[in-house]
């Protein structure tokens, strides 16, 4: 076999075979891309060409015989013996046939209009917010705003005033317009850095900074902002607590929030909502309730679109395989590898 032939043969092999060949031959071979791997293997093979070639041929032979002899052995293997082994096996072998594109695209279209039904978590949150502080952590687009509106309505029916804060001025303006439509313009006011309308209304929309300033002014006894009748404070987008520049404002607001007012924190999915709830429990008079779930209202499917216009599902399952990033659709995997080989300059390790 000439070097050119060998290189061609290597190039035809899948990367997995190359990695198996490189084991013990090339250091840190797992870092290298396919081209680099071939280069390194050829470099190495100059020392022991015959041994290298025979290994390669054995591997190719094994691979061709693989599907018939290999599969029963795999089925006998214990389900989860070792974490690493489990991942490798789940990545390399099909448990079910991967989902097809037509299957994946099924269900497209507009659902028939349905009467609005409260989600269980919304009922739970609304029941809790009348008694105590509540932290809500649910995926984007689950209907947090509905909870905010209902909670505000109930508080206003009991003649308690409500403050709703959002992190962005634009968002405050949108909410002001939205709430004015729902509750009537005389019931809703807005306070932002440069806009003050209807400041005596029972429902006030503001940015979190403004609320922080109000609380500071009230603490030093300068203004009377009817904090004694304040029944509910809704902090939207509470995950801003982790914002490097503005997060501190959320903390200040929560620390200085009057104790008779209930706090309602609305947040996108975050990793540690329990911590936030525990924190609130530790500093507020009543124990805080956490309402969380991670199921999306509209299910999500992930796809892969190749630059040549070919669309395939990204994962081998229809939905998102939670916790299994390796369950890629074979076609998407193949196309992406092709793409990487074409775009990455040779000799340059993958990022």
């Amino acid at each position, binding site marked *: 076999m000439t070097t050119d032939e060998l290189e061609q043969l290597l190039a035809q092999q899948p990367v997995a075979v190359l990695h198996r060949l490189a084991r013990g031959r090339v250091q840190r071979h797992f870092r290298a891309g396919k081209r680099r791997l071939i280069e390194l293997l050829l470099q190495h093979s100059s020392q022991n060409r015959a041994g290298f070639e025979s290994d390669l041929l054995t591997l190719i032979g094994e691979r061709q015989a693989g599907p018939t002899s290999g599969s029963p052995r795999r089925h006998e293997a214990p389900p989860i013996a070792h974490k690493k082994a489990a991942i490798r096996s789940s990545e390399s072998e099909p448990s079910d046939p991967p989902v097809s594109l037509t299957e994946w695209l099924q269900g497209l279209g507009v659902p028939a209009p349905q009467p609005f039904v409260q989600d269980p978590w919304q009922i739970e949150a609304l029941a809790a917010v009348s008694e105590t502080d509540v932290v809500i952590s649910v995926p984007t687009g689950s209907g947090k705003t509905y909870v905010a509106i209902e909670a505000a309505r109930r508080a206003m029916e009991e003649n308690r005033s409500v403050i709703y804060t959002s992190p962005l001025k634009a968002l405050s303006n949108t909410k002001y317009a939205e709430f004015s439509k729902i509750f009537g313009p005389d019931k809703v006011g807005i306070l932002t850095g440069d806009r003050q309308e209807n400041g005596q209304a029972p429902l006030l929309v503001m940015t979190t900074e403004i609320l922080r300033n109000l609380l500071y002014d009230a603490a030093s006894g300068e203004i009377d902002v009817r904090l004694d009748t304040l029944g509910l404070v809704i902090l939207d987008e509470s995950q801003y607590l982790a914002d490097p520049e503005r997060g501190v404002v959320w903390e200040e607001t929560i620390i200085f929030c009057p104790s008779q007012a209930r706090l309602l924190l609305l947040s996108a999915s975050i990793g540690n909502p329990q911590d936030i709830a525990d924190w609130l429990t530790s*500093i507020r008079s009543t124990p805080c309730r956490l309402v969380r779930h991670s199921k999306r209202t509209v299910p999500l499917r992930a796809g*892969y679109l190749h*630059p040549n216009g070919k669309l395939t599902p990204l994962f081998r399952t229809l939905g998102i395989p939670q916790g299994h990033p390796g369950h890629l659709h074979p076609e998407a995997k193949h196309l992406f590898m092709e793409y990487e080989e074409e775009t990455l300059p040779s000799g340059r390790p993958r990022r």
Partner: protein
Amino acid sequence: MPPSIHPVDLISALRQKHLTPAIVFLTSRRACDEAMEAFDHANCVLPTTRQEAIAKALEQVMARHPSIAEHPLISIVQRIGVAAHHAGHLPTWKIAIEELMRQGHLDAVFATTTLAAGVDFPARTVVITQSSIRKSRDFTDLTAGEVQQIAGRAGRRGKDHVGFAVITPSPYIDLSVLTKGLTGQPEAIDSQFTISYPMVLNLLKAHPHEHIQGILAKSFAQFQLNQRAEVLEQKLDALHIKMEPFGPRVCTDWITQWHTFDHARRHRHTRHPTYRAEPPEISARLPFLTPGRVVGFSRGRGIVLRQYRSKGQRNSMLTVLRPESAVTECPVTSVKEVYDRTYDCPETSAYPWCSTDTFDRLSHQLEELPLRLPLLPILVSSNNEPLPDAIVQSLEDFSCPTCPSRSACQKDFLTASRLRQEQQRHTKSIQALRTSLWHRFQERVEVLQTFGYLTLTTQLTAEGEWARLIRIDHSLLITELIRAEAFTGADPSLLAGILASLAHDDDRPGAFPRISPGLSSLLGQVRKLAESLSPYEDPPLLRADVAALVERWVADQTLTWIGLCRLTTMAEGDIYRLLARTLEYLSQVQTLKGTHAGLAESASQAITAIRRGVLEELP
């Protein structure tokens, strides 16, 4: 094959599979704008009925926000039903696009990943083209939370059965970041609590100094610090249990004792070998301690018979003839005096190291010595040898070598000292975790005291009373500027210009419009002050071009929005944000009516001057 899919192909592919409307997230504003240019001559136009619907909807929005009427992208939006939506656009444009998207007129919106959180409208599909995001000049991988926030825009409640997140590769994409982000759990969030100067002033205004520690303890920051401290405390408890077998032995603190002893031992062997152990005053004597020399000891005198080295001894040794013909061996260190008297004494190779005749003569001479003898002056050269360590000198002080628990100490020392070090480290970090916030607060208090905003008893001074109303970034610089009367007599445009340069924290370059000499000299003054304050507060960028831009907008009331945009290369949206932030800063200055009436007046004039044209369109 192109490195990434062409926008026109992307849209036709999405349309063909009925995956529209879609939001396409691209790396940069420029990528969005280039995608729009790509549609300029594309023939993927919409059917006329949809074009008319879009035109109708656009008209409605335009009636409310006239500033979008001349937007260059209008024709593309109408013909093809795609639009760009990023921070470079005016808020009114973004509102219009969001409105059209909600009504379902558009097929795709191209947005930047940086502002994924600001894209607050759902679509059927989101298209993800890269795995990293620009954060302050650097690209970092998207976190799982960010990937899910982006993917969260896919699927409209009530309008879609399913949402789609489509990944299409571009160079340097890392697919695993995205697949992990899609399938993983979002990250935990951490407190970003900082203690700013206005916070200190406001806290001290409302609460006495001794209550503050309790208030800081209520922060989420302290909550998380406590969590970490608790973990450490558990570790510390475990260490205590592990330390039990290593309690007090013969010495209470045997670990330290053994450590010093061990150290001294090792030290002696390596750095101070036996034959080099003499201090300089001893070694200076050695050349004079020759056979026949008369020397004095603490008790009595003697004559040196020979000088020699012995393997077991640290010092050079002497054989000395003592009174009554006694011959003794002693180290040189026991010699107290060296006298200026020698006798003839030829050395021999065996005991008594001189001939019998000489020995008898010397014994006799020793008895006959006068009571007083002159001392030999010996010059000690300082460069002779460095002083050996005090530890080595006191090695004999240790009782360790003969201690009954020596072997046990030696055996356990390594484990015990490692455990103890860990214990000490944990104790220190726990202490730091529990008190760090309070220390940071105290640091701020000290700075405010030196600048005269707080009295030594941490009461607010008259300066502090108004300074606490400035609750924005760079508050210390702003209050110091006001105290330095930098703005006295400055007209509203100058004030607005300076506050703009303080408020603008974006480093996207902009072209330089003409700057007035008044503003430029004031800016120099501000820069100087900012530099002198840099130990206490991060200095702002203080860009002169944005200051000049805002100054022109305030001073020249005939300047139109288009005219303003032509003065610079900054994007419309950036100019808008700059002016909006300047307004915020001005309104803070405006609250100082009570103490700085003139300044507040000029701030409110600047506010009315800024609010015109596009800025009036949005509330």
